[in-house]
């Protein structure tokens, strides 16, 4: 079974283009601590064109969190901004990239609950 984080990045990479990131340009490095291991995802964004790879690289914005926190983000259970405010997610560099990137995390609610 594939975990939420891997699934999130795989889906993002296979989409190739993401309209919600059309105003974004830069590289986002996501560093996830999983026990003693550090897992790295490098996302380069050029006006909505997205490439995802595993591994290190120059980044405009680095995001650090424990693996299970990011799993929560990828499942829509954890809110990125609240996590940032309480220090469960840390960000270095161009934080505007993170603001745009967090648009991609899924809804915490069942779809269509907004309709009255």
């Amino acid at each position: 079974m594939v975990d939420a984080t891997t699934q999130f990045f795989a889906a993002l990479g296979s989409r190739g283009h993401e309209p919600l990131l059309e105003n974004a340009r830069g590289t986002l490095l996501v560093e996830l601590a999983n026990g003693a291991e550090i897992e790295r995802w490098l996302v380069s964004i050029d006006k909505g064109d997205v490439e995802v790879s595993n591994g290190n690289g120059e980044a405009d914005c680095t995001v650090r969190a424990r693996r299970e926190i990011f799993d929560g983000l990828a499942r829509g259970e954890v809110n990125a901004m609240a996590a940032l405010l309480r220090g469960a997610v840390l960000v270095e560099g161009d934080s505007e990239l993170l603001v745009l990137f967090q648009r991609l995390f899924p809804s915490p609610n069942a779809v269509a609950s907004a309709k009255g």
Partner: protein
Amino acid sequence: MSAALVQILDGNTFVVSDDRGDIEASLTDPTGLFSFDTRFLSKWVLTVDGQKLNPLSTDDLQYFETRFFLVPGTGTVYVDSKLSVIRQRAVGNGFHEELTILNHEDEPVELTVRIDAGCDFADLFEVKDALQKKGSYDTRIEDGVLVLSYERETFTRETRISSSVAGRVDKTGITFEPVIEPHGEWTTSLDVVTGLPGESYVWTKQAVRGGRKASMETNLEHWLADAPRVECDWDSLESTYRRSLVDLAALRFSPPVGGGRSLPAAGLPWFMTMFGRDSIFTSLQALPFTPELAATTLRVLGDWQGTRIDDFRDEDPGRILHEMRYGELPAFEQRPHSPYFGTADATPLYVVLLDEYERWTGDARLVRELELEARAALNWIDEYADLLGNGYIAYRRRNRETGLENQCWKDSWDSISYRDGRLPGFPRATCELQGYAYDAKVRAARLARSIWKDPAFADTLEREAADLKRRFNRDFWVEDGQYFAIALDEDGNQVDALSSNIGHLLWSGIVEKSKAKAIAAHLLGPRLFSGWGIRTLAEGEGRYNPIGYHVGTVWPFDSSFIAWGLRRYGFKDEAAQIAAGILDAAEFFGGRLPEAFGGYERSVTKYPVQYPTACSPQAWSTGAPLLLLRTMLGLQPIEEHLIVDPALPVGIGHLEVLDIPGRWGRVDAFARGRVNVGTSRGLRRQLGVAAPNAANGKTRRHA
């Protein structure tokens, strides 16, 4: 006894102290050093030989700097002190305080000078609601620096206190024992630095706008020099204008997570944060003077636009945020402000601002950049806001515990009522929301045709707008009163009170021409017009109260948009009369209009009665004189030209606004009243007591 509160700030860092500079806060007491919605100092008390000091004077040097002149307590009404104490305090990343003690004696003095310091790290919401803390506190001394800190799981905040002169540091403060020569002085600086330890780079790097005092002063000078100049034979208008510019500078807020741009925050000091509605309205008011505020507001609110359904935050795809907060309670999701989206007007208003911004600046590039956001906002209106399925924007909170009940600008609990005072159920579709939606569609159609090159979308939007206008004029029109209902209730029936909301409808252009005259007559009539401005709720309605927050007070921001609306429908004199009333009121408040003032009849009170409120200046009150200048001059950007079509109130002989920036470069606007009538019989001249006079005007383009 020191009751007066003194406030200084930079960005969202601010200090509220008593008039001797001391802070002695309890959990519910709103004094302290605050930053990012957290209190970083709740105790800061200066004593000399164990005695607190008495204030002689307090000078606000700049919005970020204050000086306190103090003397030791004598216990009598006479001040005959051998010592003077000066505290000069500037807010930056925390605050910096210069403490100076002067000895006026012929003998040397030995003193014990003590600063007591402490912190409860309360969240602003806790200060408001008296909630208890869940984390743990620590106090330690590191190399002569007193460090106060708070920790809850991964959430940490700390305050570091140090002095330039070495003192004796203990866990509750710092003690100095200076000997001051005859007629000599002793001085130390004290630095209080707020911080988030560890790796919270983003806060410390981007949070500090000005940093040191010198650069903050330069920044303010540039800001003032860059804005158009106003010259007028009525001195009060010149000083109100200047006050507005300085206050707008103080209200600029750079969100700590984002591109480091600044946008207008809502109010000072408690609302120094992003607010969708307030930032948009203020940017609209300030467009002819400081268009860069609109650009940053559009960018930042666009970045944060909702993308998913989140009931806790009342978020939907395309929705523009209501309010962002940075403290402990949003961090642990005890409050939804990370950000909270519970506003029904910011989303259509976002599109309105985008179009108005382009009309002034010609910045088509930004309009192209934000096409996706604008389309998502338009989609929200039809897909997510039509809660009743009747084609109108309505609101009902999904976060029932901590969400907002009224998601329109009148957001207090009793603001929307029937004539007889009953409150409707939810969802509620207030009338001005429909006006904003109409305006958003009409304006977006222009952008779609001229910039996004999508004429089919433009046609659709125009068709929808025309249909909305037709339905609205049928469904909201209160036949027996000849005005528009304040809202439709959950059954689609009219909530029939007469309110200032009808003025916003003129501004949006949703009112059919045949109905405009009746609306203007109501707005300037005795039930809504107080002589100073438009009452939020008409006299005679069940809930009318001249000092009720949204049920009878006059809001300068509200009146300024209504004046703009009256101009839109050709009611020049009526617009000038409202401008005169609000600008007269501004003079009573030293050029700084409060959020609201009493709805009492002008002829009865003779002066505007301030509504008691914690925030001053308030951004959209600060913006009101700017918008009124625009409406008095009849400034209207038409393609590459700025049209001037003035109607000045009686009493203004001439008015010039020089160097108005826009797609035309910089132009000057002139207006001259044909009749220059002083109407004063009392001590001061007031404008709005007589009918306005016709005037002529012109522009001059710069070479």
